[in-house]
């Protein structure tokens, strides 16, 4: 009967999926049986006791034994099903301590993800296979719901609160995720891809952004420049939340035209914005703070991989 399960349910991508599908199929067959227990008598009686003029029907008012049986019987069945469902749900509710934690910010109508090392993605996540992964989620506007059908997990995302789900992916390859709580116009377009990688591919993806950049890093993709990679990094690690590239002032100075210029610092001195200065600003941001800005930038020492730092320098240089 596995074809029936495969027809009714999405592919099984996690341990949960197997357990939940088992409960689902058990309930399905139980329901089929109970449905037949209702449907067959109703049709059979309508035929067997079909109308004959003048027939007098027996005056059966009640039967206490029967009433007790069909009250207590279903009650016991329901208690059993409740505990079975509770058992599976307890596992779903509590994430293991060693889970990799990914932060999720949902907004109309896209998903932002942030990895423990600070890298960020939009609508696209990779996770390593057979390792528990926990999503801590919040919303910037209205209700959303993070739903990964293949993993059989789903939870609402609420503005002003943090909710969590977790699962252990077991099947390599792409899986859909989608928004399951109505959130306005593009509700049905708020979806993305979750890719389950083996450890090596996952490490490579974290390092380089995955196969799309593989050729570039192997020197086989002449169309991509270091500045292109820097631009991806600018978005992925979140530089864009404080630095613009078009000259407008944000929480930090804009990168436009910085490279090679003389920068006024808040201690009254000035410094040439060369590669050494830019690298120092990423790793030790408090060392030289630009005039007119607060010393609020966190250090990216250890968070930026060498190729990301190189890319950022190239990107900033391209903006002069």
């Amino acid at each position, binding site marked *: 009967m596995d074809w029936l399960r495969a027809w009714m349910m999405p592919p099984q991508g996690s341990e949960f999926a197997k357990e939940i599908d088992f409960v*689902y199929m058990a309930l399905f067959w139980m329901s089929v049986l109970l449905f037949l227990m*209702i449907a067959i008598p109703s049709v059979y*009686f309508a035929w067997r006791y079909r*109308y004959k003029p003048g027939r007098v029907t027996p005056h059966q008012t009640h039967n206490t034994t029967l009433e007790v049986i069909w009250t207590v019987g279903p009650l016991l069945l329901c208690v059993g099903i409740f505990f079975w469902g509770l058992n599976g749900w307890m596992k779903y509710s509590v994430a293991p301590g060693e889970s990799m934690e990914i932060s999720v910010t949902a907004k109309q109508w896209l998903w932002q993800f942030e990895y423990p090392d600070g890298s960020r993605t939009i609508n696209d996540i990779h996770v390593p296979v057979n390792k528990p992964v926990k999503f801590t989620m919040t919303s910037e506007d209205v209700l959303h719901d993070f739903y990964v059908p293949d993993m059989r997990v789903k939870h609402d995302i609420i503005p002003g609160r943090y909710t969590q789900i977790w699962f252990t992916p077991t099947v390599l390859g792409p899986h859909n995720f989608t928004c399951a709580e*109505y959130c306005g*116009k593009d509700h*049905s377009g708020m979806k993305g891809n979750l890719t389950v990688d083996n450890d090596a591919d996952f490490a490579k993806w974290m390092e380089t952004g995955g196969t799309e950049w593989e050729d570039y890093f192997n020197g086989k993709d002449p169309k991509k420049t270091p500045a292109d990679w820097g631009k991806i990094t600018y978005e992925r690690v979140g530089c864009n939340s404080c630095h613009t590239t078009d000259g407008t002032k944000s929480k930090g100075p804009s990168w436009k035209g910085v490279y090679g210029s003389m920068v006024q610092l808040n201690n009254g001195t000035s410094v040439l914005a060369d590669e050494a200065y830019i690298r120092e600003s990423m790793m030790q941001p408090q060392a030289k703070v630009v005039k007119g800005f607060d010393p609020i930038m966190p250090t990216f020492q250890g968070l930026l991989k060498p190729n990301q730092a190189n890319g950022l320098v190239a990107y900033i240089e391209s903006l002069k």
Partner: protein
Amino acid sequence: MERAVTSGARIGDRPRPKKNYLNETRGFKSWALTVDHKRIGIMYLVGTLCAFLLGGIFALLVRLTLLTPAHKIFGLQVTAETYNRFFTLHGAVMVFLFIIPSIPGSLTNFVLPLMLGAKDVAFPRLNLASFYLWIVGAVMAVSSMIIGAVDTGWTFYTPYSTTTSGTVTLMTAAVFVLGFSSIFTGLNFIATVHKLRAPGMGWFDMPLFVWGMYSTALIQVLATPVLGITLVLLMLERVFQIGIFDSRIGGDPVLFQHFFWFYSHPAVYIMILPGMAIISELIPTFSRKTIFGYRAIAYASVSLALVSFIVWGHHMFVAGQSQLATVVFSALTFLVAIPSGVKVFNWLCTMYQGNISLETPMLYAISFLMLFAIGGLTGIFLGTLSTDVHLTDTYFVVAHFHYVMMGSTVTAFIGGLYYWWPKMTGRMYSEKWGQVSAVIWFIGFNATFLPQFILGSRGMPRRYYNYLDQFQPLHVFSTVGSWIIGLSLFMSAAVLLASLRKPADAPDNPWGGTTLEWQTSSPPITHNFEDQPVLENEPYDYRPKAVTH
């Protein structure tokens, strides 16, 4: 076809009185200012059926939009915004303007006082006020669609509903007014059942229809005020930004869901209990056999009403309520299955060894048994915590509640309409075409909603404009089913309206029913009975008279 009537229950036809409630007075004013429960029932019937038509048109539009991934209806492009409005208006119109007021306002208004042997409801003017509030609410709801649009879903979840543009405030005000209409009706029925039963009619001599509607009325009176308060808060939030539900100004969106479902879960029973109440009449009448387990069914109605108040959290298993609450609500939710099962088993035992004829109302009643079985059993999947996580907010839920709301309640409503039509209008309809409509209804309903269970379990979320290509065959199936449903309803309308063209021909008791409404003429006289009826037998007594006396 000769009418099937049992010997014992038959009330001999008296000469048809010249004056009845329909022709005693004439003119617009005699209807607009009437306090006759039968006329108010007829006006409610016309009104709620118009709402059914409107909601049905939106349903067909929703299904047509989903027919292909291109979302074109006869070449016209439907945008995501338009689609969101379609399903919102479909839900809001069907729930608030049709299902909740339909059976209480129309059929119950008409037959409940007759069944009790009363001249009218306890508060006839309140009854008329209830109808006018319904009209006001309906006008407000329809104007909110014409002036602007509502795209929140019928559930009005915050903070989307407090921040989106459109005429949400007017629509919620309409629902607020409709709530009072519902409260008035419920209050009236409670007082009527307590005070106006015929001499000799104790609580356990009432027809089970009355028990079901009494339970419904309890919920209408106790739960609806919470909806009113919630919607007032929602309107204040939209207009004055007071910060109850929107987290940006200090509120809590989950609080809205608790408030909303505290009403709207009991409201599910405002919808299903009247359906069950009708079935408890149809099955003994067409089986010509006393109801099996009278007290069990009566207690089951009241216990469903009580349990309905303590299970609202099952709408929120993944919505951010506490985990303890989730576990408790799951356990309580299973309680719903027990009285529902009791009713179904007792109905089946009533059919056992009966003398069953399959006139149109009985065909709808048997459809009810099967569709309600599917609706109820799929509820178990959603009450079970682990499977609910996967199935909630998908088409599985859509299919489940349509089996209960439409497959059960609307099926019973149509069956009840066919059952009491001769009493209400004095006309018999074409039995053959009525039966055909019932069969088409059953086929169309299952064709529309069975595929949606599969769509849901395969992971298609509800309220979705775009879907994955793999889901299209099931959507096509479902959309074709919706046309079959439309065909059946169109046939029913034609069958019933055609009967009005001929002179009154219905006997007082065409089905051989035992309850008091069949003892008066068809259609009844303005004051219901020539003489005050006195109850002599227990309800549903189909023994030949010679045995009882």
